[in-house]
């Protein structure tokens, strides 16, 4: 984007990452050749449906899953082969916020104890008093009353619990926060509060986020750059405006057309691209382009060639042999099933 070299402003970098899991049914190719860079101070949005590998990609940045191939770099250091002991240092640099704050907080610990835990693990507070002060400061940052430190997670609402999860992630002053579906299990009125909080904290503290979600509108709102994943691969990346207004990959276009819009006349008359069937098994992904089995514009070439990400305009990349043209053809011939 700017002339600055990627190496200096990259907080985290994945290169040709593959994460495979052995299962009784065969090898699951959860992530299968993903390269991405998260730059300091930005939000990179990672969007995809279940089985796309977006969460596994996030976990790989913390080395919470073992990479099968490729490298993981954080703050300029290659951490791919780091030992368990050195990983503790990594986990101060990269923090994580999970979808379900109920599951990620210990129900027996008070809120204060949960937030103080990373301070103790990373030896960030010299005394009990210093720790209590820091916990109070973190509660202020996430908009919770200080007296909530004495409460247990079950006494909090879902939104308050997610604020505690964010305070915990902030405790170690990380270089990068991986937000894995942070609003998915919250009520609509609370989702907006959490999104505003995350953006406010980013402005105030200069944070860097990897925002992982299936909700395209939320990703668009939160991100500076967006990467769309399908079956273990990034199929398109660009600015939110590029992705939203000029999707170049047929999958992105189909995904966008499936996002419901809260405007009845618009939603009823929209031309939708309804994809046939389900996502294929990641055990045996299709040859060539992985999306070709569901792509309304698939051609014989698509079974032969595995498309790589190519730049179609500044900062906008798509992995499709017919990038741009396929989407135009789909929009001209929508497969909308609503006509009786």
């Amino acid at each position: 984007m700017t002339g600055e070299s990627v190496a200096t402003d990259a907080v985290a970098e994945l290169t040709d990452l593959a994460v495979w899991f052995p299962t009784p049914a065969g090898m699951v190719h959860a992530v299968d050749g993903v390269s991405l860079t998260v730059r300091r101070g930005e939000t990179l949005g990672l969007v995809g449906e279940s089985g796309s590998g977006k969460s596994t990609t996030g976990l790989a940045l913390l080395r919470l899953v073992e990479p099968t191939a490729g490298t993981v770099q954080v703050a300029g250091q290659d951490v791919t082969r780091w030992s368990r002991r050195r990983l503790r240092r990594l986990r101060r640099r990269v923090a994580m916020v999970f979808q379900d704050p109920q599951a990620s907080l210990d129900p027996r610990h008070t809120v204060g104890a949960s937030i103080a835990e990373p301070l103790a693990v990373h030896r960030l507070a010299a005394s009990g008093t210093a720790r209590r002060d820091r916990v109070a400061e973190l509660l202020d940052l996430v908009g919770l009353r200080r007296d909530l430190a004495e409460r247990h997670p079950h006494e909090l609402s879902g939104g308050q619990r997610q604020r505690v999860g964010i305070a915990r992630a902030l405790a170690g002053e990380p270089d990068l926060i991986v937000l894995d579906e942070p609003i998915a299990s919250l009520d609509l009125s609370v989702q907006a509060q959490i999104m505003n909080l995350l953006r406010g904290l980013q402005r105030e503290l200069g944070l860097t986020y990897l925002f992982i979600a299936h909700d395209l509108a939320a990703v668009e709102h939160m991100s500076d750059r967006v990467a769309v994943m399908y079956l273990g691969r990034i199929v398109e990346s660009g600015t939110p405006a590029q992705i939203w207004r000029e999707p170049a990959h047929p999958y992105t276009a189909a995904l966008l057309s499936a996002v419901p819009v809260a405007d009845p006349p618009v939603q009823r008359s929209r031309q939708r691209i309804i994809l046939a069937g389900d996502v294929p098994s990641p055990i045996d992904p299709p040859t060539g382009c992985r999306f070709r089995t569901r792509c309304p514009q698939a051609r014989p070439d698509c079974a032969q060639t595995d498309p790589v990400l190519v730049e179609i305009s500044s900062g906008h990349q798509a992995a499709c042999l017919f990038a741009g043209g396929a989407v135009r053809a789909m929009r001209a011939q929508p497969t909308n099933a609503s006509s009786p």
Partner: protein
Amino acid sequence: MNDETVLSVADLTVTIGTRRGAARAVAGVDWSVRAGETLALVGESGSGKSMSVLAATGLAPRAARVTGDVRLLGTDLAALSAARRRRMRGRHVGFVFQDPMTSLNPVLTVGRQIGEASEVHLGLTRRAARARAIEMLELVGIPSAAERVDAYPHQLSGGMRQRAVIAMALVCEPDLLIADEPTTALDVTTQAQIVELVADLQRRLGTAVVWISHDLGVVAGLADTVAVMYGGRIVEQGAVDAVFAEPAHPYTAALLAARPDPDANVTELVTIPGTPPSPLELPEGCAFWPRCSVRGDSRCERELPPLVPVAAGHQVRTFYPRQTREDR
């Protein structure tokens, strides 16, 4: 579309006894749905949207005390014996819930489960029920239905399972389909498939649909009328176009504004402070008052606003309805 009312609910209340006291889950709800029509019940967690429908169809938990007048095809359900009520529900009402596995038995083939209802309620033989199951699987768009009829639920994907549940719900061609967050656990592309499927089947079969959802976008595309629930009560009700275009209740308006809109470049989203109230600790007066940005006066704190019309067929429960276009 005809005027036949399939299900009507009047002054429905549901109180649930818990260890922490009585929870007033639903407090005086009225709605009805006609053949071929889709009514959407919208709300956040604890609003009473699911409980009102479960109670109306006799599926409320044992600890719940239900009062009110519920009529299915003109029959007062409370006047029936439990066995007759169950039979009537089985014959005339189909259910689709969020998690298909709550409706499917993991140790029976999907074909058996779809066929069973038609044996019980339509008197089909085992063999005819199997043929009917294959027909239903085809109808809901499951490929190679003649083979899939012998599949067990775990052999199907999430989207296919929800299709099988829809087949099960519609096998007796019910007059009413209750869909309780049926697409919430599905991916957006699968969600779009399921929404299209239900809309298409409804057009063909003339089924009345009650669709319960928190997703305003999904509701916008499929509802004829919408009832927005908050704290166990309907706070706004009307034709879907009117409610979405000119929301009169501050809660509806805030909910519609809280979604990020990719076509509008905003930094700060509109938020509603606090969280939806628990049915155990509902405030006096207007339940939305503590979170409301309008906050008229102390009357809101003390008195429950009545549900009043703001336009033909459009009602709202607030002392301070937002101005509609004609007023401005």
